[in-house]
């Protein structure tokens, strides 16, 4: 006989380092309905963005998310540059690509590690995080901080990477790739992991589009949408092909992220190879005026900023739509029909970043 129960998943759950609550209605062991309850991390960044001046906001938006901080700053700076009509020097655009792609790799390493940990593969988790520490060392040496690197500024970047450090990055990437080869091989081919991810949390291409999924969730369903193809920063010159997988299940999303690590490795190498000389920043003049939207690709998907300014030192409106915010509705659609035991893995498969979601 079927019995309906309601189970709260979270706010404090070992799989998720961050507080979010999913109210799961279960029919025996099968999920019937999942309703997300958020608000544990809400700070009010959008309002603070109207109070601080537009230069200080760079440091505010960086602290929306500590995992992809550089990319938040990049999106904000590109929007302001559009409003102020600032031309960013080529070297700065290439440096932005290098740091963004290192951030993407770092984030995917982190997520792959957490996925391994969710299955109880502690050694694999350690492998990924040990590799990630190499990336953190690169940040520390090139940007002066491990997590929130604060190198993006309006009109360019705040720091240059010296030739010795560029060589250091290239040397480290060789080691990183070697370790990554080993670890990704386990994630993609291990029998247990396949059993827990293949066919779990399926999202068809049509559903994904309709539910507004972004990033690896959308690309894992076979839709080739990647904001980087628009060619912001130096992506236009470097060229990029979106990574897609057809199946639309948790395994496909894992595979997209694993392949994107290699794509980022390649992009960093090519960006370093073609890094032009010259200035790293221009001094912006005047104040932003008008309204614009700005889009970049985060590790978790498309990041969308709407900015309104009225020619004063403060913005009139700063609207931030983060990728996880867009990926919550697909999660709500994926969960019904799955087993209770699969909920953590499916939840993890959208790579939730709650501090982004709630801002």
């Amino acid at each position, binding site marked *: 006989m079927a019995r309906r129960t309601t189970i709260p998943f979270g706010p404090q759950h070992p799989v998720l380092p961050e507080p979010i609550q999913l109210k799961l209605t279960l029919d025996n062991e099968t999920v019937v309905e999942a309703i997300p309850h958020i608000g544990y991390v809400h700070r009010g960044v959008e309002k603070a963005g109207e109070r601080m001046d537009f230069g200080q906001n760079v*440091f505010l938006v960086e602290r929306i998310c500590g995992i992809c901080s550089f990319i938040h700053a990049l999106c904000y700076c590109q929007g302001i540059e559009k409003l102020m009509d600032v031309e960013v020097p080529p070297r700065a655009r290439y440096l932005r690509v290098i740091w963004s792609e290192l951030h993407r790799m770092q984030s995917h390493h982190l997520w792959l590690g957490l996925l391994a940990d969710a299955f109880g593969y502690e050694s694999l988790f350690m492998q990924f995080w040990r590799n990630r520490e190499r990336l953190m060392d690169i940040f520390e040496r090139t940007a*002066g901080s491990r997590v929130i690197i604060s190198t993006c500024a309006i009109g360019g970047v705040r720091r240059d990477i010296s030739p010795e450090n560029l060589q250091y990055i290239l040397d480290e990437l060789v080691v990183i790739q070697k370790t990554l080869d080993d670890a990704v091989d386990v994630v993609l081919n291990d029998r247990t992991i396949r059993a827990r991810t293949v066919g779990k949390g399926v999202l068809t291409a049509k559903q994904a589009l309709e539910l507004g999924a972004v990033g690896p969730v959308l690309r894992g369903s076979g839709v080739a949408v990647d904001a980087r193809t628009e060619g912001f920063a130096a992506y236009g010159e470097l060229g990029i092909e979106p990574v897609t997988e057809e199946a639309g299940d948790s395994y496909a999303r894992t595979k997209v992220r694993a392949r994107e690590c290699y794509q980022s490795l390649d992009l960093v190498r090519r960006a370093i190879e073609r890094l032009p000389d010259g200035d790293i920043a221009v001094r912006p003049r005047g104040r932003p005026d008008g309204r614009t939207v700005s889009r970049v690709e985060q590790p978790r998907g498309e990041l969308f900023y709407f900015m309104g300014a009225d020619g004063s030192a403060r913005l009139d409106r700063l609207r931030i739509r983060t990728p996880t915010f867009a990926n919550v509705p697909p999660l709500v659609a994926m969960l019904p029909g799955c087993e209770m035991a699969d909920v953590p893995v499916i939840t993890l498969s959208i790579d939730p970043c709650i501090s982004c979601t709630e801002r």
Partner: protein
Amino acid sequence: MMLSRVLSNLFSRPATRPFPKTSREPVEGYRGAVEFSQEECVFCGACALRCPANAIEVDRPAKTLKFDLFKCIHCACCAEACKRGCVQLRSAYHPPVYQKPEFEFSGAPVLAAEASPATE
């Protein structure tokens, strides 16, 4: 495959940094401890104006500077804003504390005739 990994891990150096025994050489350019040089400061307030977290308070007439370490986000905006170079970020990190440190200094009151603003 597995055996080779076991052997290579057995004979390679450990990944762990023996932290308290040997602390790592701080990386050059790390945005760590914030330091003010009291002698150079003219209390122009440029650092306080630029600080995104409002961690610095400067009272220009009274010539005092208050720095709240607990609000500081180590963005190095103050160091960039200071034209006299009296705010520096040293590459060592701030150690944890049991109590909130009070950081405050004040300059000697200057005679009105001398008080030409050096930096604005």
